[in-house]
């Protein structure tokens, strides 16, 4: 938990309203105070509802629906046997799944509280779950420690390998990711191994090989959820290879599976925005304003089309980023950088956020936003890590490579290359 605690000064720096940003070039005590006032008082108009029948809140589950019933029976089971690690794992895993399906971090918190009751656990599934929760908070070192410990307890615990691979991909450590993929291969987990390997290849400068690996894996994948994930990644890889028609076909095949998937919609929206089809984005994302990542893309599309909803959605995003900052949450910096760059034209703030994000997460999209922000801010030094990655990985996407070059050219100072 320690990594989520940060200084108050940092938290409350740069509160949202433009007024204060113009008045206050530096964050001083006043800024802290204003930040707090904003965080705590902005909606400080408590009211007393007029009627008992006024609906104040809609809950994510009804008391009688399947999910609620399942959760309450899992909770009851844990109450019966409070030291049973298997029951705890089951409940926490269910919470984690719900967080994924609905994009609701409260379930992550619930899972976390359950897992924390077993600080000295030696159960591989529970350790793996703890690692998953840690990676959610971007505590990658802690998460890798948990996955290692899980593999020590049970060397054939495939989940731990898969997660190790995923984290190394985010950290752009492709050699280590490859080892995790090999581990999955040894366990004959072909679909997981194929997904892992395909992405490692694609990120690491072999788009064609990565594409073929993912395509081959798709042919083996039986479950729609696996297909959806593989199709999504195939769409991204095809776009990087400069084959938009193929990319669109993959995305459409994924969408045709008819399952809500926030990541798929985000990737699809990005593809459409790049292709200059914002109207299509609005069509797809209109019902998704509760998911911040999708709201961001929706607002981008609406802004491009000068739609009346754009301003309202931009304000919603600003409020949500402010709320996240107030609690010391720094896991949204990549999205926030994009928001600052594309929707507020504040390249300076964008480049700071993108650089902070890139120190933690180094996927192609993280590199892209850093390069775009650095070009806009004419700050080529900040984009150095992304250019270093482009060189060392050999990542082949033409757009990202062009950005890398442009960011190196935009100013001759501050760079050694």
């Amino acid at each position: 938990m320690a990594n989520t605690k940060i200084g108050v000064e940092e938290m409350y720096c740069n509160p949202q309203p433009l007024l204060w940003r113009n008045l206050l070039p530096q964050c001083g005590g006043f800024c802290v105070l204003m930040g707090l006032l904003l965080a705590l008082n902005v909606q400080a108009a408590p009211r007393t509802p007029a009627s008992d029948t006024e609906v104040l809140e809609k809950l994510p589950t009804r008391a009688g629906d399947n999910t609620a019933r399942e959760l309450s029976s899992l909770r009851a089971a844990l109450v019966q046997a409070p030291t049973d690690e298997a029951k705890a794992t089951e409940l926490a895993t269910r919470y984690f799944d719900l967080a994924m399906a609905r994009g609701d971090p409260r379930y992550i918190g619930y899972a976390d509280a359950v897992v924390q009751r077993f600080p000295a656990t030696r159960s591989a599934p529970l350790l793996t779950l703890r690692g998953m929760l840690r990676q959610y908070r971007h505590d990658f070192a802690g998460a890798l420690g948990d996955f290692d410990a899980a593999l020590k307890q049970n060397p054939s615990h495939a989940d731990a390998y898969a997660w190790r691979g995923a984290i190394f991909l985010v950290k752009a450590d492709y050699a280590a990711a490859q080892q995790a993929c090999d581990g999955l291969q040894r366990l004959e987990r072909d679909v997981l191994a194929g997904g892992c390997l395909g992405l490692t290849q694609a990120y690491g400068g072999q788009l064609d090989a990565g594409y073929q690996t993912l395509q081959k894996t798709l042919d083996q994948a039986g479950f729609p959820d696996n297909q959806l994930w593989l199709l999504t990644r195939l769409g991204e890889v095809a776009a990087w290879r400069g084959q938009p028609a193929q990319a669109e076909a993959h995305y459409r095949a994924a969408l045709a599976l008819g399952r809500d998937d926030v990541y798929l919609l985000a990737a699809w929206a990005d593809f459409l925005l790049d292709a200059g089809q914002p109207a299509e984005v609005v069509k797809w994302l209109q019902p998704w304003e509760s998911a911040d990542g999708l709201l961001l893309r929706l607002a981008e599309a609406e802004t491009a089309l000068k739609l009346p909803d754009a301003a309202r959605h931009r304000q919603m995003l600003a409020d949500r980023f402010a709320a996240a900052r107030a609690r010391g949450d720094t896991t949204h910096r990549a999205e926030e950088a994009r928001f600052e760059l594309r929707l507020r034209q504040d390249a300076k703030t964008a480049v700071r956020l993108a650089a902070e994000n890139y120190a933690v997460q180094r996927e192609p999209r993280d590199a892209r936003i850093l390069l775009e922000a650095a070009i806009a801010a004419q700050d080529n030094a900040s984009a150095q890590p992304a250019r270093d990655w482009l060189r060392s990985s050999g990542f082949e996407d033409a757009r990202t490579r062009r950005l890398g070059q442009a960011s190196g050219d935009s100013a001759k100072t501050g760079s050694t290359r």
Partner: protein
Amino acid sequence: MRWRQLLVCFWLVLCGPVLAHKASDSYLVIDVQGAQVSGQWDIALRDIDFALGLDTDGNGEITWGELRARHDAVAAWAFNALTLERGGACPLQVTQHQVDEHTDGTYAVLKFIATCPTSTGDVALDYRLLFDLDGLHRGLLRLDIDGLTHSSVIAPDSRRQTFSGERVSRWTQLQQFMEQGVWHIWIGFDHILFLLSLLLPVVLVRVNGGWRGVDRMGESVREVLWVVTSFTVAHSITLSLAALGFISLPSWLVESAIALSVVVAAFNNIVPMFNRLRWLVAFGFGLIHGFGFASVLAELGLPQDALVLSLVGFNLGVEAGQLAIVVALLPVIYWLRNTAFYRRGVLVGGSLLIMLLASVWLAERLFDLKLITT
């Protein structure tokens, strides 16, 4: 094996946490004045429902009626998870239940009061709400102790926190703001250059289109008094009005006008326009400089309970800083007044330099450029 889940997890890492909704926070504002405590605690209805179950009829909606029926239980649960101490526990008592909206939904608002055993000393807070159920829950705290504001984010590993209740004496507060005032006039080059431009000619008089040194120091002192007093009176007026929130101007306008004032004051030394009416220039532009001081004061953070005190302190500091400059400057320029070096080099040459510098500032501030300022 749960293949589905695993691949879903796979993308989770790859795209980072999905942002929808928000993790759980509560907003806690407490004001401790001596032994008297008042406060407000906003807790999300979703969180209360998760802990206590509010949806009595099980329709997935929480109504005001359902919440109202459980007010006592909510208060008991919440205040059981919060301890406030000043010389011992201050028992918290709910005074009103309301609701409010935050970015992620509706919150129950608990207003409360308490009386502490002592009216001085440190304030300790022990916060335990929801930590047993939600590992990501955070308490966002703003705590005022006798007018001093503290803020903190309370996490499971920092659930007990102590805040200093040491009273800053009025005298110390006044001193601190005086120091800031002195410091600001000394590091505020635009204020110094403005003053300097107005003061350079006080040791000279205009005779037949040329400069002549004054005969007696007294003449210069009188002129200085006029200029400095006008400047002081003017900027005190606007500093007070702005600091008390009666007037506010956009900072680019204030900063640009300050740069312009320096240009004009320096230009007047090269091509005299105001001559004996310099005090009027000092007064007019002093009004603008006052807004500049006010923005500094605002950045320092004005203690609400000692608004006037800090204003007076800051202003006194600015005057003292000004006076120190005058006292150091006047004898030197009086001594040099009859030299060509002073009349050409310092008065004209120096004013030209000042004008040039201030023009660059003006351009920077008007067009938001970075030419010389880093």
